[in-house]
């Protein structure tokens, strides 16, 4: 425990420096992250207006608040590890990571945090743009905002563990893109990115409330908006913790099997 906590400052420093070095290419990737919520916000506020100002309990202005916070939550929780892992195996850089005395996931977490911190410079203007163009209506509730901070952190960890575990699929197959796309499609619908899950057909939102995707993105967003009752919030946190525990166990089991069958490339 002590050993890997000690290495975080060093990991964070190098990751931060490298993120600053490649800030421009990183910034271009952020355009998509800003555009996606903007697109769905446009669609849903158009629908809300055509339905007499409100649809599924959201007005156009409330959709704006939903997608403004979703923009932030999605930025802070997203990872790109599923696209990267196959190259690590293919080009052999994984071998170096394995030689280090700490689990490779820690370097990835540090890199993720540093990248997000640097790219906030791009995300925040995007957020301001969204607010100016769509005028969100936002009525924060004290306790929900306070609870939002740990819930967002759990959401980040949950998404990170899930996507890191799925990335390990690259140990077994070179065709990870198909698998990534299945995950991505599920995530879009079940996390609340295509629409707040209460707008989905009932059977879909029932499924969504039991799977981890919603607890990484939609749940933190709805909590920040003050749309959840204290009971719903507590139940949500509990489900988050359960899925965190499940993914923690899953990741260590799969990692052990994956590294056992790994034969280094590039030596």
């Amino acid at each position, binding site marked *: 425990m002590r050993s890997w906590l000690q290495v975080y400052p060093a990991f964070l420093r190098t990751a931060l420096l490298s993120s600053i070095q490649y800030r421009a290419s990183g910034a271009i990737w952020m*355009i998509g992250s800003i555009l996606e919520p903007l697109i769905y916000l446009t669609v849903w506020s158009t629908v809300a207006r055509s339905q007499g100002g409100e649809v599924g309990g959201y007005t156009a202005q409330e959709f704006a608040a939903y997608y403004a916070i979703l923009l932030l939550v999605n930025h802070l929780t997203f990872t790109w590890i599923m696209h990267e892992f196959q190259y690590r195996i293919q080009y052999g850089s994984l071998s170096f990571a394995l030689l280090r005395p700490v689990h490779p996931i820690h370097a990835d977490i540090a890199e993720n945090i540093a990248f997000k911190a640097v790219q906030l410079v791009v995300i925040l203007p995007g957020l301001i743009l969204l607010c100016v163009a769509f005028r969100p209506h936002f009525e924060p509730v004290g306790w929900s905002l306070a609870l939002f901070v740990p819930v967002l952190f759990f959401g980040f960890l949950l998404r990170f563990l899930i996507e890191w575990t799925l990335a390990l699929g690259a140990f077994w197959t070179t065709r990870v893109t198909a698998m990534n796309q299945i995950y991505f499609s599920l995530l879009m619908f079940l996390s609340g990115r295509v629409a707040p899950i209460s707008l989905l057909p009932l059977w879909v939102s029932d499924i969504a409330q039991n799977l981890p995707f919603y607890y990484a993105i939609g749940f933190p967003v709805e909590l920040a908006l003050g749309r959840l009752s204290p009971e719903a919030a507590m139940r949500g946190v509990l489900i988050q913790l359960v899925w965190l525990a499940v993914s923690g166990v899953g990741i260590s089991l799969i990692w052990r099997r994956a590294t056992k069958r790994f034969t280094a490339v590039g030596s």
Partner: protein
Amino acid sequence: MNTLRLLGVFLRIGLLGETQYRANFVIQLFETGLSMATALGAVWVVFSQTETLGGWRSAELTALIGVYFIVLGAINVVVAPSLQKFMEGIVNGNFDYTLTKPADAQLLASLSEVRIWRLADVGLGFAALGIAIVRQSAEVGWGDAAKFSLALFTGGVVVYSFWIMLATLAFWFIRVENILQIFWAMYTAARWPVGIYPGWLKWTLTVIVPVAFAVTVPAEAVSGRVSNGTLLGAAVLAVLLAAFSRWFWKTGIKRYAGASS
């Protein structure tokens, strides 16, 4: 004529290369199918709450998604991989060999790599379009079909010219692959009719990254809602952009000094 023959040759090479990896076709079909299902799923969720979206009915949006995948496939079969290779060629010096060949360099650079399996996107796009036309109660006459073909063709010219201009930037800057990401990010916005976006975004998608002409206008033509003025505007823009991109390419290539020398 020469262009067609060259295209034929590169298609054959591409086909020979890719038929070695036939399983990739199944994977590609699966991935395209899934991404189309995602797009149609989003349309379905939206239309479970409303009858029309900015004046579009659900069958018309299905047609729009069909067009989106047709254009996406067309870009990915030849334009995107070829120009990607061209940009790498500027960095590693392979473009020097292209210049020594007795054909137009822009033509060679735009055709040099064919990813035949991406035709899956085009095929599924046409399938979605067909379903949309059947579901749409209004008759689609020959006039609409002609307008659609014209709109799709001009849209294709606009997108190709835009790609050539982006790729030409490689003569000045080395890392242009990132700029291509801007195109891909903006292209996802074309899954919905550009008319619903706020003014500044609508203009960006029409003028700066002209995906409106590639997707929305042809889809409007399918349901017979495109005005002759819009079609004329699209044709004028296509001619202008084609001419400008050609000039830009020539200017760029004059500047090229070769990487290997």
